[in-house]
């Protein structure tokens, strides 16, 4: 078992190699731990969800959608400021509900971009052979898409808020509703990112993933609208209220209106205090289930 062990110092042999070959240099600097690596993956993935640090082509869709969701808010803000309106024509908490299609398309595009590539091209082998654990990867990707989706919804809300301030609307009345809407945007982002990532992680082909996520979210929204409309028409108030559970947007809107004190924009909100608790429990349950499903999915990934 004798092996001619090459001492590391051999790399520093002077005079070896050509003039621009500095020879191999060892790295003696800091090595960050799991937490810092997870944070780095989070930051890069969140930026990647807007195409930052990626090709121009991958910037187009996210930025178009960001423009699309912000434009109505910008128009409202400008009009409010110019006409010195005494009230914004929309509630902050209703904005995401009205523009939910844009958010859906964004999540459908970015969830597969975030995880399908690593699975399909087996880049996971390179991650798994590093200090990162599977749960770190899942947490970083989930947090990144949540943050990116939150930004998509928070930007127009902030534009509205600035517009309201420019129109000299009473700050005391604007701030609570603005904060409530940010809380709602965060919950919506959590739910949507979870659903999007789970679907993307089981459909490694990116195009398929995009279509599947759009389909699922659209069907949920459709079912919710239809069930709630019919129940409301039949005066089944309790049932109509709980119909809001079906779609991520109405689910979070229910939490906003019943627990956070926002105005209800739907035909029926969660019935009573119990309704609000049920809506919140469903939000928590969906997020936990999505995270658990992702962990299970990634446990099956080998190097």
């Amino acid at each position, binding site marked *: *078992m004798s*092996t001619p062990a*090459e001492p590391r110092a051999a790399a520093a042999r002077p005079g070896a190699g050509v003039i621009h070959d*500095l020879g191999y240099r060892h*790295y003696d600097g800091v090595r960050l731990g799991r937490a810092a690596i997870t944070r780095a993956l989070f930051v890069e993935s969140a930026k990647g969800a807007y195409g930052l640090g990626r090709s121009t082509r991958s910037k187009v869709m996210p930025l178009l959608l960001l423009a699309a969701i912000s434009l109505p808010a910008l128009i409202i803000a400008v009009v409010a400021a110019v006409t010195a309106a005494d009230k914004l024509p929309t509630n902050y908490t209703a904005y995401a509900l009205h523009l939910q299609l844009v958010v859906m398309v964004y999540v459908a595009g970015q969830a597969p971009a975030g995880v399908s590539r690593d699975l399909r091209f*087996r880049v996971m082998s*390179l991650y798994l052979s*590093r200090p990162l654990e599977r749960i770190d990867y899942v947490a970083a990707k989930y947090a990144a898409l949540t943050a990116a989706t939150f930004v998509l919804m928070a930007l127009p809300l902030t534009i509205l808020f600035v517009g309201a301030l420019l129109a000299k609307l009473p700050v005391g009345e604007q701030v609570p509703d603005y904060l409530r809407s940010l809380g709602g945007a965060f919950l919506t982002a959590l739910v949507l990112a979870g659903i999007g990532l789970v679907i993307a992680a089981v459909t490694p082909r990116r195009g398929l993933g995009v279509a599947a996520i759009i389909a699922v979210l659209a069907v949920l929204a459709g079912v919710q609208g239809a069930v709630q409309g019919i129940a409301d028409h039949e005066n089944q108030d309790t049932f109509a209220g709980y119909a809001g559970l079906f779609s991520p947007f109405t689910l979070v809107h229910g939490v906003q209106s019943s627990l956070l004190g926002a105005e209800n924009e739907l035909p029926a909100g969660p019935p009573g205090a119990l309704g609000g608790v049920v809506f919140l429990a469903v939000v928590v349950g969906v997020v936990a289930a999505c995270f658990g499903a992702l962990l299970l999915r990634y446990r099956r990934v*080998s190097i």
Partner: protein
Amino acid sequence: MPMISTEALTKRYGSVTAVSELSVDVEPGVVGLIGANGAGKSTLIKMVLGLLPATSGRATVLGLDVATDGAAIRERVGYMPEHDCLPPDVSATELVVHMARMSGLPRAAARERTADTLRHVGLYEERYRSIGGYSTGMKQRVKLAQALVHDPQLVLLDEPTNGLDPAGRDDMLGLIRRIGTEFGISVLVASHLLGELERVCDHVVVIDAGQLLRSSSTADVTAASPLIAVEVTERTEDLAAALRQAGLGVATVGPLLEVDLRDDMTYDVVRDAVVRLGVGLVRMERRRHRMAEIFTTPTTPDGGQHVDAR
């Protein structure tokens, strides 16, 4: 301290035993892990990375226990998978910088190390182009670069010459040799091809069906061994008997006799014996053992067979 040390390491998948009671020490240097496809090479690598729990037995890498210190091991070890693992839509620089950061290097250090490492593996201007347009040889270099970028103490290379043409194969083998010598990084290179490993490895570990077949230094295996091969036209067995009577060690290998070479007088003894028998001498030559014989000669795990006798 051995780079890798296993004690009765065993991995079973249901009724299939992938690695069986494997006890081996891998010393620093360039070490070949040889075995046919399905011999347990990849299973062993996964266990060494701390990604696959052993059924029984234990293993340490760089003195760290694979069962408990997986993350610490993976911080100090690099791994180059056998299969494709590169996303086509990023450049080599982007990918390797990202992977350096995933190994714990800060941003600035990751960029610097990436530039250095890609130069060392032989990727220059093309490192800014998307990987999707790379040749197999270039892709193998990127895979190697990501395994080296964090300056590991040990790299595990799984079939690094797969899919390469002869010239690319030579380049890759040269690179592996340089990693072990110039870079001072220990290498465990898994391959099912013996011939290429004997050129770059200091030591070889041979496994078959999850069991250790042998572990010995390449010099032992391939050095010109003190043997002469003798072939005669007929009465091979009589010649063998005559030579044994003269006190020489003789082994029959197919139509050949392998005779222990003690000194130059041995040639005379063989010549005289052939003359006495009155048969034709087809050949008599000094022989060099090649690693391929590891598979053809009956062996014991500690290499007590005549291949090592010197």
